[in-house]
């Protein structure tokens, strides 16, 4: 091809491009009282550890196991939200958000604050993780939620309104009334209920209920609770991750495979199907799933177009929404709702598939979490009695480790082995620091000479985290040379307590053996003897 001909081709291309003009999509739709309202709720579900550790998920390493990088999600989200003020997003897991927040420049942080205060980015659930609901202790659920909520209050001045437990494997009464209503949530949404229950609720349009989880607190701690019709993903065919296989909305008339009408028809059909099993004319589409929005633009580009063309079509009304907007819309209909009491356990997703194994899976990790929980409660008391230091050592690392361990693939025992090890390692690091707080507080409190402050207390208290394997170097001490073992015993309960303590002391190991004495051929008596 000659030079002249080449120029000709370039000119021709330029003419063609000039014909397809920049398209402005109308994404401003609000609620339309006369139509089915399809609330598109863009979200990502970011497990605080499962197949990869929490840090691997954050930075996007170990991708041969799972291509997942939370940094990509949050990095790509901000420009996508700034591109159109009607776009909305919810973010849930504060363990990830806090990691990302600490990495951002002041400028980025100030932009994030703007999209939060405008309501484009809304924090929901807001705990450090989406805790499991079967195996955590309620004190751990409260602590991990508090940790996330107080951060959001301090940094953004916001209080999450919505409970979002979309993945945990069944749902507890305590979650509904305590970690829902008593936290101040206006509603609570989840994805997993028994398959038989779900069939009936769809038929009766009772997926959405008023849940009274506590017999004692009754209606004073009730909450609007919605189970999703299938799962926490979009309707089939509306996945728009970079590598997803759903048909993208192709609305460029100059390109092949234009499909706007097909996509609008698909959308309307899916909306009507869901509206048929839902009370009121509001339905929610959870637009996202595990670790999605790694390139947020692909989702928003397609949702922009869907909202534009579906509303132009006019059979249903599509809008960018959040669970808060959805809840307010439901509330505004002034309907009354079916009552739900007790809980949603056990969970089966089909016949012969009861998710009741995880109630016991990894029983040693479950014990470690529980014993650390009790220790954290005691350590905070002692930290207060001595006076908390914001510098280290303090109990913050243990708080963080315990919070993450409540995740629905952590204490549940449903993570890969290397991830279970990571949770245990974090607990161990957190414990080691809290142990120092406890030791120095006890040294301070036992030091009677100082009435204020404890700068000069010198007692070096040792503790025995390995007492469960009968290993306690601190008590296995040689008392043969006039030494005494001092045992300080702390009770974190609000009552005086009588109890039996036990630990292994160590005296003359080389001299003590057991002698066996047979009496009447029946009893065998052992005696302490010296060789």
């Amino acid at each position, binding site marked *: 091809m000659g030079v002249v001909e080449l120029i000709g081709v370039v000119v021709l291309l330029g003419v063609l491009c000039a014909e397809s003009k920049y398209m402005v999509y109308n994404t401003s739709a609000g609620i339309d009282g006369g139509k089915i309202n399809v609330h598109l709720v863009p979200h990502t579900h970011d497990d605080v550890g*499962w197949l990869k550790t929490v840090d691997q998920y954050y930075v996007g390493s170990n991708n041969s196991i799972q291509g997942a990088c939370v940094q990509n999600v949050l990095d790509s989200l901000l420009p996508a939200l700034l591109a159109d003020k009607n776009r909305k997003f919810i973010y849930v897991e504060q363990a990830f958000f806090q990691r990302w927040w600490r990495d951002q420049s002041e400028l980025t942080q100030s932009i994030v604050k703007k999209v939060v205060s405008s309501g484009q980015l809304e924090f929901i659930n807001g705990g450090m993780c989406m805790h499991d609901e079967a*195996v955590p202790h309620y*004190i751990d659920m409260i602590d991990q939620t*508090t940790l996330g909520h*107080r951060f959001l209050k301090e940094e953004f001045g916001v209080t999450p309104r919505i409970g979002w437990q979309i993945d945990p494997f069944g749902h*507890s009464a305590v979650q509904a009334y305590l970690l829902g209503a008593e936290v101040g949530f*206006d*509603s609570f949404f989840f994805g997993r209920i028994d398959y*038989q229950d779900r069939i009936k609720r769809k038929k009766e349009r009772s997926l959405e209920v008023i849940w009274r989880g506590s*017999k004692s*607190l009754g209606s*004073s701690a*009730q*909450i609007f609770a919605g189970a999703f019709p299938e799962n926490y993903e979009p309707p089939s065919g509306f996945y728009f991750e970079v590598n997803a296989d759903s048909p993208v909305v192709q609305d460029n008339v100059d390109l092949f495979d234009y499909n706007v009408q097909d996509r609008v028809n698909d959308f309307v059909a899916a909306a009507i199907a869901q509206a048929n099993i839902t009370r009121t004319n509001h339905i929610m589409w959870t637009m996202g799933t595990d670790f999605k929005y790694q390139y947020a633009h692909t989702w928003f580009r397609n949702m922009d177009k869907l909202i534009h063309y579906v509303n132009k079509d006019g059979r249903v009304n599509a809008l960018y929404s959040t669970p808060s907007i959805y809840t307010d819309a439901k509330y505004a209909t002034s*309907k*009354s709702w079916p009552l739900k009491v007790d809980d949603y*356990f056990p969970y089966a997703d089909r016949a012969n*598939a*009861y*998710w009741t*194994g995880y109630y*016991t*899976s990894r*029983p040693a990790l*479950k014990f470690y979490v529980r014993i650390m*929980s009790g220790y954290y*409660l005691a350590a905070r*008391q002692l930290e207060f009695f001595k006076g*908390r230091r914001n510098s280290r050592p303090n109990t913050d690392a243990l708080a963080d480790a315990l919070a993450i361990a409540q995740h629905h693939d952590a204490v549940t025992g*449903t993570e*890969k082995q290397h991830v279970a090890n990571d949770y245990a390692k974090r607990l161990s690091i957190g414990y080691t620091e809290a142990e120092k707080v*406890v030791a120095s507080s*006890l040294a301070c*409190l*036992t030091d009677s000479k100082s009435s204020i402050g404890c700068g000069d207390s010198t*007692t070096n208290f040792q*503790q025995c985290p390995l007492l469960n*394997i*009968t*290993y306690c170097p601190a*008590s296995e001490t040689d008392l043969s040379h006039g*030494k*005494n*073992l*001092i*045992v*300080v*015993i702390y*009770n*974190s*309960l*609000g009552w005086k307590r009588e109890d*039996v303590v*036990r630990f292994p*002391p*160590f005296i003359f190991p080389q001299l003590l053996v057991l002698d066996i004495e047979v009496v009447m051929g*029946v009893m*065998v*008596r*052992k005696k302490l003897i010296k060789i």
Partner: protein
Amino acid sequence: MLVVNEDIVVHDSEGRKIESQLVPIVDAYVDLRNYYARAYLGSNPNAVPNFWLAFTVSVPALGFSTYTVSTSKKPGAGSTRSSIYKFQMGEKPAIEVGEGDLKLTISAPPGKMINYVNKRNLVEESVDQSFSFYTGYNGSNDKAPQNSGAYIFRPNGTYPIKSEQASMTVIKGPLIHEVHQQINTWIFQTTRLYKEKEHVEVEFIVGPVPIEDGFGKEVATQIRTSLESNKTFYTDSNGRDFIKRIRDFRTDWDLEVNQPVAGNYYPITLGIYIQDKEKEFSVLVDRSLAGSSIVDGQIELMLHRRLLLDDSRGVEEALNETVCVLDDCRGLAVQGKYYYRIDSLGEGAKWRRSFGQEIYSPLLLAFAEEDGDKWMSSHTPAFSGIDASYSLPDNVALITLQELEDGKVLLRLAHLYEIGEDSVLSVMTRVELKKLFPGKKIAKVTEMSLSANQEREEMEKRRLVWEVEGEENQNPKVVRGSQVDPKKLEVELAPMEIRTFLIQFEVDLMTAAFKSTVDA
């Protein structure tokens, strides 16, 4: 051979000698110690102590007591050594253990049958405790494969574990009685009674669960009584409210039963109980476990799971926990405890709630060495963080006491009982805040939402009032604690209520100055 004359002696904060007992550390525990301590040390721990030293302590609320352990040459002055009896099969019909009101009469080895008698309240019951395992279902060749795995419990048959051992060891002393049973080569069980307690403590070591036969196994224990529990049992929700469960039944729909065991399992965080017209039988756990009542009168706990197949929910690993210490790899052994007690109907809640608190918050031990006997006179041997004359009401727990970064204190108080749970304790109760903070002056108390991110009043103001079908405009009234009067500073708590407060103290300038020096 000479008997050792040197004894261990324990003294309390006031210098009084107190009773103590030496309990032998048996082989099962020595093995655990040697293997797992090596994981921490890289080598075997030096020598193995022969005994546990056990003694009764009395510790004030939110406080500590100090005890000294020393040696004495005076014969007979120190700890009581436990008597050890070994019973062979068929040698004796039964043996009684229990130094206090609770007595267990255990049948001859293998010792399955237990007669339980509480001499104080005259509750008597026969108990039969055993182990079994389920083999994990292998669905590899099915059309819709569903194996038993980390998430899903799908048993393929249940197999009783018969005690292979012909003997049973009984350990007796003034404080503790223990019955040791080596159930098989990989299950060891200690049944323990404390003189002053009216419950049975069962400590198990389960594992390594053998898999050489190619089958994954899920190990459970069953405790059978004669209670006519009529398919009904109660399990806690996250350690809080108890929920009624009925075997093979759901309140919300007509259950189609396809898994008669797995489909009746529920999460146990605090405990499980059954009852009939006369008695209630409660089991409390030291960690979350699966539990159920598969037949009337019985309670079952799933203790450990070792499986060889993935259950197709994404984790793509078998739940086959294996520990390697240096080059020595073994299936994970799990040691744990559960506790049971039988009460007259209506009497069990008090134990479940108050002892449940003790399980969650075990006593914290700290050790120091001291030359000579100066400690008690040179240190504060006993302390309580709250007013010495005060203790929380029996139905209240302090679930958070935490100083925040800004110096305010986060306080949570929880009523421990549901309405109707206990005839005495399921009532409105009061906590005096002034008594919780002796020596400090409370400047301001702000009631917060549970997660302490907004004022309670603000939260209540904007709460949406939803309506329930059939009770339009008439949400039933619920009684709750009233607002805290800033002068009286008393917190009222209604049954199951948890209240959260931020507390500001009047600033003590000396403390503030000291703190800033320390922090600097």
